[in-house]
């Protein structure tokens, strides 16, 4: 009897498998990654994985055109402003006007419908009957110029994401990095708590004056040119457009000058738009199972363009590689995150496509930091130039930096570690960004030149005594570890007294080394940084990240680095940014690129890249380097 029961159960299961195995859902894309969405609020997003939600659920004034990082197509704006179509103009006083005509009939996923009792109910646009659509309250879920202004203002005044803060920098001509800095500067206070109400209102009003709503157009008025304006407005972060009426109904900032401070920089849980969305994008949020790290996007049939081809997108975090691989093989997953070392294996699988070497605009480099905090710092060894350590300002000597640059074998990095998938980085700007030239000077592996510089460093003392230091990378990133190992071996070959200990640390410890004190805690680290628009200047440009005294690298590389940047690079950087004509600016950025080589500011290694592993029935993926390969699911389809 028991045996019969057992056999019946097994047969039932197998029958179920056979029946269910045939069920295919070509309309659903299953995307397995190791990341996670952070919030649904575009103004809060500050990372590439986090951008998947606003990218697909919301729309922006403009979108990037295909693979291009400096051309745009209309989004909510019906036309891309340009000098030629007179939607970008400059007044004699230097002010620049960008005019965005807004598309008519752009509805959000939820719209406000007048109920019989006169109240307004928020309902899904797709579920409305024809009669109910006639009762949509104007402006409630229909994108207007006012919504554009509200969205941009809210992103700036929320002040949380550096990405949204870039809009503030843009509106203020790069005078202020964010509203907090603006309020402090205008009031002279040291803390935001001490800023008086009048100044807070002034901050709002100054920004508000920059965004002028006329009928159904939005005009952005900048006091001086800001070349990255369109690039910032096309990014899938803070520039995504919300419906004001819906946002206010959820408890978000009501749009008044005297209340923004109450909504400034909320924690994730305090933000009323944290887990809800009402964009006008091609997909709607159907489910966000946060504990299980799963999100389901459903097609928005009422999208103002053609509806998306996919019916659903399922984003799931599956951390175990074999589990992802088996699901791809079985066809249960359509796209999977893949460690670089398994690319050859998956490429050999039947029915799987691998798109390799997709460029990104960031570079991975070995950074020199000086001076480094000295007391009890294991990264410095003895803390002296005695062969068992290094002094805190070890990299202040340009010959040390150049010696390191000549000691790296770039051929090994590109051909052996990255299997030829990428290029050697030539400096802060990468291929495709202004200032990048194929013939700019780069370092190559040259032990003799390295030795020459090391012999000159510290008046020959370094060559005699040697050094010992610790190089850090984020644990688990094997390519960064390999780069340090190449450097370690080459240095030891140049002079056996040159020793590097390599240490992988968790992100928390790594960030502590960089920002945990007044001075950095490490002298040598491997990390990657990249810009967020194609212009090399401005708050988030490639050259600024590396060579601006307020940029990301200067933020952690120590006072010595900052001093070098201030003296040699900042004047040129400011000069280029103040110019309007790209033809005049390009040579300056090219010069900055060459100077970063001349001063060996950083050991530039490789241009970052990504790749896609998907079933071959997945069609329509377009890679854009500026969005770091984030998937825009609108053009994607599954075709057998």
């Amino acid at each position, binding site marked *: 009897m028991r045996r019969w029961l057992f056999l019946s159960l097994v047969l*039932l*299961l*197998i029958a*179920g*498998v056979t029946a*269910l*195995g045939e*069920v295919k*859902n070509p309309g*659903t894309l*299953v995307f397995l990654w190791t990341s996670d969405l952070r*919030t649904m609020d575009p103004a809060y997003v*500050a*990372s590439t994985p986090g951008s998947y939600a606003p990218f697909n659920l919301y729309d922006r004034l403009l979108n990037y055109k295909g693979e291009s990082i400096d051309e745009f197509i209309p989004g909510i704006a019906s036309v891309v402003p340009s000098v030629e179509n007179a939607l970008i103009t400059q007044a004699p006083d230097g002010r620049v006007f960008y005019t965005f005509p807004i598309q008519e009939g752009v509805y959000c996923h939820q719209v406000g419908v007048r109920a019989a009792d006169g109240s307004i109910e928020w309902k899904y646009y797709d579920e409305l009957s024809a009669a109910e659509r006639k009762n949509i309250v104007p402006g409630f879920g229909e994108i207007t110029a006012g919504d554009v202004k509200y969205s941009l203002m809210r992103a700036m005044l929320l002040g949380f994401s*550096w990405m949204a*803060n870039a809009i503030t920098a843009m509106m203020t001509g790069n005078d202020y*990095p*964010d509203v*907090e800095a603006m309020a402090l500067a205008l009031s002279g206070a040291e803390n935001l708590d001490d800023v008086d109400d009048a100044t807070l209102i002034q901050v709002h009003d100054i920004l508000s004056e920059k965004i002028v709503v006329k009928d159904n157009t939005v005009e952005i008025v900048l006091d001086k040119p800001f070349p990255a304006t369109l690039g910032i407005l096309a990014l899938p972060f803070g520039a995504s457009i919300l419906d004001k009426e819906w946002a206010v109904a959820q408890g978000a900032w009501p749009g008044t000058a005297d209340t923004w401070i109450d909504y400034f*920089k909320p*924690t*994730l*849980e305090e933000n009323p738009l*944290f887990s809800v969305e009402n964009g006008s994008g091609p997909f709607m949020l159907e*489910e966000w199972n*946060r*504990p*299980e*790290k799963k999100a389901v996007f459903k097609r928005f049939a009422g999208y103002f363009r053609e509806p998306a081809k996919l019916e659903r997108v*399922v984003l*799931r975090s*599956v*951390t*175990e590689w*074999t*589990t992802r691989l*088996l*699901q791809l*093989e*079985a066809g*249960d997953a359509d796209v999977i995150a893949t460690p670089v070392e398994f690319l050859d294996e998956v490429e050999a699988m039947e029915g799987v496509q691998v798109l390799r070497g997709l460029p990104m605009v960031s570079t991975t480099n070995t950074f020199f930091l000086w001076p480094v905090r000295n007391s009890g710092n294991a990264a410095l060894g003895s803390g002296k130039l005695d062969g068992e350590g290094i002094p805190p300002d070890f990299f202040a000597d340009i010959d040390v930096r150049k010696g390191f640059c000549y000691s790296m074998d770039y051929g090994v990095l590109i051909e052996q570690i990255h299997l030829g998938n990428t290029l050697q980085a030539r400096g802060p700007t990468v291929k495709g960004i202004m200032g990048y030239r194929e013939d700019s000077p780069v370092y190559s592996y040259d032990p003799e030149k390295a030795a020459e510089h090391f012999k000159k460093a510290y008046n020959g003392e370094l060559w005699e005594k040697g050094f010992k230091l610790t190089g850090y990378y984020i644990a688990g990133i094997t390519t960064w570890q390999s780069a340090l190992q190449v450097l370690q071996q080459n240095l030891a070959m140049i002079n056996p007294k040159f020793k590097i200990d390599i240490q992988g640390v*968790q*992100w*928390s*410890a790594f*960030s*502590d080394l960089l*920002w*945990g004190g007044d001075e950095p805690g490490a002298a040598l680290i491997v*990390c*990657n*940084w990249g810009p*967020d628009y194609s212009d090399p200047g401005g708050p*988030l440009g490639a050259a600024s*990240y590396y060579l601006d005294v*307020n*940029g*990301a690298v200067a*933020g*952690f590389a120590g006072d010595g680095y900052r001093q070098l940047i201030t003296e040699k690079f900042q004047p040129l950087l400011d000069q280029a940014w103040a110019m309007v004509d790209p033809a005049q600016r390009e040579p300056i950025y090219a010069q900055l690129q060459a100077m970063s080589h001349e001063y060996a500011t950083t050991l530039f290694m490789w241009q970052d890249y990504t790749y896609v592993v998907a079933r071959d029935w997945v069609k329509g993926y377009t890679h854009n380097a500026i969005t770091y390969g984030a998937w825009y699911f609108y053009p994607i389809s599954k075709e057998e």
Partner: protein
Amino acid sequence: MLAYIVRRLVFLPVVLFVLILMIFSLQMLLTPMQRLALYAPSPDYLKGGQTFIDSLIDLYGLNDPFHIQFGRWIGYIVRGNLGWSQTARMPVGTALGALFPATAELALFAMIPVVLGAIWLGTKAATHHDRLVDHSVRVFTILGWSFPTFVFGLLVLMIFYGSLRWFPPGRLSQWAVLEVSSASFQRYTGMNLIDAILNGNGRVLLDSLRHLVLPVITLAYVNWASMVRIMRSSMLETLQQDYVTTARAKGVKERVVENRHARRNALLPVTTVSGIIVAYLMGGVVITETIFDYHGLGRFAANAAANLDFPAVLGFALYFAVLLVFINLLVDLLYAYLDPRVKLG
């Protein structure tokens, strides 16, 4: 007995307070910048530079003195929640509640083969002492013990899903997820299998069962070793007792001797081990959950620890401590019930 239960429960708050104080003190050994990693989990988040970073540290109060930060967390508890988990993106209590059914379902269905299989195998091994069956059972269970969970789990996944496509990872197939999320499917317990039965939905029941098979087999196999060995040795010891010899001398059938006289008494040590295994399973099984893409409490706790999500770690520690106390209490009560010689008090 009631006095015994009350006495055990009175100690619970003390245990919990010492536990959270210890964990909280440990996290405070990290610098504010290290603890900021929870809120800024990659270099992307820190592009805003030093001023931005300082403002984040202020925002989350990471520079506040110990007593302020500890008081803040105690405040959450007093208000009835356990703080906010950045890992789960929701209040810790809600996250624990949301993941508990998955863990409970896995533990429940894993314990059935673990206990029944161990009793059966242990009995067989003891009654066939030093014969082929005994040796086979010992080899079989020692193999299970020796197999690292991730190796065994991956192996069965590759065979039964990769090659045969029988038993997929996850908790449900995509079509079943949609069915379960639909308005026509009532969620009673959050356990898919039980809810499918209560809804009378055979398709979801089968699908849920298919997804449970591999993690259950993995957990059963790796847990059998200790249980079988204890059952075997306990059974061997019992079979040598005078009352068993007496029963045999009276001509009682061997099957009756083994089942009624020996096995019931041999179960006492197994009860204790079962309690430990239940607690271990209810605390979540990180490796099994990771391999089989099964989102339960184990993965949540491991992720929280890796991300320095201390509210979640503290919340989970509280849950686990309470669980342990109650399971131990239950085992003691069960012990007293099974063995009339044991007196609680």
